[in-house]
Structures are given as structure tokens and as C-alpha cells.
């Protein structure tokens, strides 16, 4: 029988891992829910953000917070540029899956060409730092990632709920024609939202660089679980994505602690299947 400490530590690990899932899912959930674009490039952008953080930090000795200050606006611009391509070719929902998959493969190849397939690890003095809470340890970087995810999720929710732009985006997603009739410039807001989603990918990338080891093929390692988070949390639901991340993170972690690590993916996708069966209208 696992000890209370082990179970407690697993819950902590799960919450923190879930926070990162939520952070990764945030941008994807927004673009899928509000723009009807299933943006697989999101994962490649996150990994690109991670590699840029690594390059800036490991080679140029730029601290991560400064790297983030450079990456966020750059990725915002990249997201706007990507959306310009989608808009020009009038890429619809299903086609976006294929187009963005292709773009993700191209980005993966570019990452590999520049950084090689060799593993990269951004070593920092605080990589293994953790805060002790009784018998439990809370790794500092993962905690920061989780807090960032929470802040961004709530800020995004508030933005969508109370700001004019947020209301306009939700209106356009629900009924584009009617929203346009009320003067909503969907086109301009779509560019803004794409920029924001890409910026969120960049932020996720900064944390991935600090927490994980990098390899180009990692783009696809996150895909399944983040998709599950997006769907379970509900499209365009920032707080839903965060909570879904926690749910999946904790369930995976407890499974690894109590049963066997190999069952962890089974648990997260089983939850997804159950939710889709019970609430099929989530996508």
C-alpha cells in the first residue's frame, strides 16, 4: 500500500504537470474554439519557444525572464503572420488540421536542422530547486509554470468575459454574420487572437526549456494529452483547460504511484472517452 507521503507527493506532481498541460492547452483551446482552427503548429511553436529559450540562455547567457520578454512579442507577430496565411487561403476547420500538421513537420525539421537531433538540456542553478512543505517537495520551476498557467487562464477568462474584444470574439464564434452586422470586425480580432495564442505557446516553451529535456521529436509527445485537456476542458474555455490539465495530471500521477506508470496514458484517454460519450457536444 503506497504511503501517505507518496500519495501526497504524487498529487503535487500531478497538479504541477497538469498546470503545464493547461498552459500548453490554453492557446490551442482559444484558436480551436473561437477561430475554428485546429492549430497543430501550436505544439511546434511551443517547442520552438523552448529551443529559443535554450539558445538564448545556454549560448548567450540571457536569463529566462528576459528571453520570455523577447519571445512573447516575437511569437505574437509569428501568430499574426500565420493567421494571415490561413485567412488568405481561407483555411477551414478540417483543412486547418492538415495544413497546421504540415507546418508543424516543417518546423520540426527546421529545429532539427539548426539544433540537431541531439538532446538539449538548459542547465540552470535552480533546475532542481524545490520548496519543502512538511514531507512534500514542490519543485520551484514547475510551481512557477503552474502559477503562470493559472494567472493566464484567469486573465484570459476575464478578457473574454468582460472586455469588448472578448465579447466580440465570442459573438463571432457563435454567429459570425450577426456579429458582423453589429460591427464586429472579426478579421482584425482573429489576427489578435492568433497572436495571443502563439504568444501563449511561446510562454509554454520557456517553461518547457527550463523543466524538460529538448529533442525535436518532442512536439508529438505532448499532442495526445494536450488534445485531451482541450476537449475535456471545453473549447475556448481557459479555466476549463486549466482544470482539465489538473484532472489529467493528477489522475496520471496517482496511477503511476499506485498501479504502474505504463497505465498512465490509459487513464487520461479513458477520462476523455467517458466525457465524450456523456457530453458529445464538446467539440
Amino acid at each position: 500500500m503506497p504511503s501517505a507521503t507518496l500519495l501526497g507527493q504524487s498529487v503535487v506532481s500531478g497538479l504541477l504537470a497538469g498546470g503545464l498541460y493547461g498552459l500548453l492547452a490554453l492557446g490551442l483551446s482559444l484558436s480551436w474554439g473561437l477561430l475554428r482552427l485546429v492549430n497543430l503548429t501550436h505544439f511546434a511553436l511551443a517547442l520552438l519557444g523552448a529551443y529559443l529559450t535554450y539558445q538564448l540562455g545556454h549560448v548567450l547567457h540571457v536569463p529566462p525572464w528576459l528571453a520570455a520578454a523577447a519571445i512573447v512579442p516575437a511569437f505574437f507577430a509569428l501568430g499574426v503572420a500565420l493567421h494571415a496565411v490561413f485567412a488568405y487561403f481561407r483555411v477551414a476547420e478540417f483543412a486547418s488540421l492538415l495544413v497546421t500538421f504540415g507546418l508543424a513537420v516543417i518546423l520540426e525539421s527546421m529545429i532539427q536542422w539548426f539544433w540537431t537531433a541531439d538532446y538539449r538540456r538548459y542547465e540552470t542553478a535552480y533546475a532542481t530547486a524545490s520548496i519543502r512543505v512538511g514531507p512534500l517537495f514542490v519543485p520551484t520551476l514547475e510551481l512557477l509554470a503552474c502559477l503562470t498557467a493559472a494567472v493566464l487562464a484567469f486573465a484570459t477568462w476575464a478578457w473574454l468575459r468582460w472586455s469588448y474584444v472578448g465579447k466580440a470574439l465570442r459573438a463571432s464564434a457563435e454567429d459570425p454574420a450577426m456579429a458582423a452586422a453589429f460591427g464586429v470586425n472579426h478579421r482584425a480580432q482573429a489576427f489578435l487572437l492568433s497572436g495571443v495564442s502563439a504568444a501563449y505557446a511561446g510562454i509554454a516553451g520557456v517553461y518547457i526549456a527550463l523543466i524538460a529535456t529538448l529533442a525535436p521529436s518532442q512536439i508529438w509527445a505532448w499532442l495526445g494529452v494536450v488534445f485531451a485537456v482541450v476537449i475535456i476542458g471545453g473549447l475556448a474555455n481557459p479555466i476549463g483547460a486549466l482544470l482539465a490539465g489538473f484532472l489529467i495530471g493528477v489522475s496520471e500521477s496517482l496511477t503511476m504511484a499506485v498501479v504502474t506508470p505504463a497505465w498512465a496514458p490509459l487513464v487520461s484517454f479513458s477520462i476523455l472517452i467517458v466525457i465524450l460519450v456523456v457530453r458529445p457536444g464538446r467539440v
Partner: protein
Amino acid sequence: MIRLRTVLVGLVLLTLPASGLAAPAGQPIRIGGTLALTGPLAPTALLHKIAGEIYVEELNRGNGLLGRPVEWVLLDDQSKPDVTRSLYEKLITVDKVDLIIGPYATSGILAGMGVAQRYQKLYVHHSFGMPHLAKYEMHFPTAAFGPEPQRTIPTTVLDALAATTKPPKTIAIVTSKFPSAQYQSSGAREVAEKRGLKVVLYLEYEFGTRDWGSLAARVKDANPDVLWVGALGLDGNQLLEAMKKLDYTPPRHFHLFPAPGPLALAPDGKQALSVTVFEEHPPFTNNPGAAKLIPLFRERATKANVPYPYVETQVAGSWAAWQVLEAAVTATKSLDDKTLGQWLRKNRVDTIIGKLRFDGPNNYGDDLFKVKQVQDGRWVIVWPRESAAPGARLLPP
């Protein structure tokens, strides 16, 4: 007069190739193979690529094979066994290569072996970890595990630990489900139990796991004297880091198939143990082939930004595979796969990792693996004592 003689000697030397033989000429001998140039196995496969490229260049700088230049037709199997299988099919039937050489890692080698068997091609390979599955009579391994690595590797490792002043009483085994890692790790469990060690934890995780926190928590909870990590690539690094975040480091830790550089260079990799057939120190560097390979590999690996540009077990195993192929072709003066295979079954080949024989069960010979440890950022062999680096011993003693 002396000056003129010197000039004449110099002129003669300049007109001769380094080997003193004529440069290879004629239709190239095409040797086909794949490597994981992309995908999760790519970091280690890169080492095999560099080793192979150097070998072929050195062959062509000399007399080639049978006086002919050698061309290595290398394809990317993306770390996927299904792709490996298709590519070997293509190499043999479409590209019509003269010979083939195996890919990196167990899954790919097994996939390619089926194709080699179908076309009765000689199949020399360098990183296969499940000898009991290698049933093809014309396969020749240079991963010198011996026929029962699931027994001999853990025995060697536990022998080394038993010889310390504080032999372990408990062991935790955490292994990837990658076939060879799982196979040898489950063997480690049996060997440990037979030797009276208590297996306080046995966990299997999926190859490509992201969340190491829970695994680390379980190892810490088990608190073993020694941790056996049946890992490939950077899994071991990630587990060590996750344990460090819980303020825990196992007293001793062993890693089965780590990416050698990252573990040696990681702050948490101090005194990590693993197994090897070659490291860059005597007596291995006394081998003339090693003396030639080491500076060439160092230069090429440094240029390719390999973080640990030293010849170690992966590189040496790869080099030995090429040596085996060259030896068979040179001795038989033939490119006929059956002829080469028959010769290899009957003869030993001197390689950088020792004398290899292929007359045991499933063409396996002796287990040549030794225990190595990270000391001062480098891998050094610590067991058995006769193979240990000068002055090196297992730490803590």
C-alpha cells in the same frame, strides 16, 4: 647530396597514398543501411553515423574493399521499426546494394533482420540487446553481450557492487518498456533475487514518458541501496533530476543504455554506473585501431556539436561492425553473403572491442561488457579490475 636525397624521398612519399597501395578504383561496393537520423533514437544514432562515415572514408583513403571504393547508402529510419523494414527492402530490391549493415537499436535491428533473412543477406549489426530473438543464421552481432545478457550483465554489475565495502542489500528497478531494456531489466530482477537482494520496487514505464515526478517519488519511497534504471537516452538523467527535486539521490545508480555524453556531463550524473565494451583509456587505447579512431572521432564529433566527443561503447560497437564486414570480405575476397557468413561462423575477428567470435548460441560469443562509472565528467571502466582505467575503482569504494 643529403638535401637531394631527402627531396627525392619526399617526392616518392608524396606520390604514394598513405597505405602505400593504389587508391581504390572501379565500381563502388555499395553497403546499405539505415540509422535513426531523426526521432527519439537520433542522438545516439548520430554517434553511429559519425563512426560509419569515418570508417568508410578511411577505407577509401586506403585500398577500399577488394580494391574498389566503398559507398555507404544510408537512409533515415526515423527511429521506427516499420520504416526500417521498408527501407531495408528498398535497399536490397530497388537500390540493389551489394551488402547491408544493421541500424541502431534492438527494434530496428529486429525489423531489418526479417528482411535480411528473406533475401539471405549477411547482417552485421552493433546494438541488439535481445540475443534470444536473433534466430537468423546469417546475423552477426558486435554488441558483445553474449547469449544471455539478461543474466550476465546484471551479474557483472552486482559482482562489482558486491566487491565494495558496503554491498547493496536492496535494489529498485525502474525500466523503460523498450524491448531490450525491459528484457535485461527483468533479468536483473531474477539475478538480484537469486543473489539474496531484496527487490523493493519494480516499475516499467512507457518509452517517451514525460512525467518523472511520480516515478521519482516511488523510488524515494522505496529507498533502495542501488537503483537500476533500464533506460535509453536521457531517461536516466530525467529521473535523477526528478529525484533531486525531492531532495533524494540513491546511494548508487546504474543506467543500462544511457546517452553517454549527457549523463557523464550532467550535475546529477556523478558516479553513475553503466556498462561498456570500450572507453578511451588503457588497455583499450593500446589497440592500433583505437589509436587511429579516437582523434578522428573527436574532431568529427566536436564539429557536429556532440556534447561528449569521446569514443565509447556505442561508437566502438559500430566501428567493430564495420571491421567485421571488412575482415570477412577481405579474407574471402568475396561479396557473396553465404560465403561471408560461413567464414564468420568459423573465424574470430580482431576488433577495437576485442576478439569477436560468432560460434555460440544464435551466433553470440563472449560477454565482453564491463562496468563503467562517471568520474570527473568522464566514463571510466571500474570493473573487472583488470580492465579498469589506471588507478580507477568503483566509488564510493
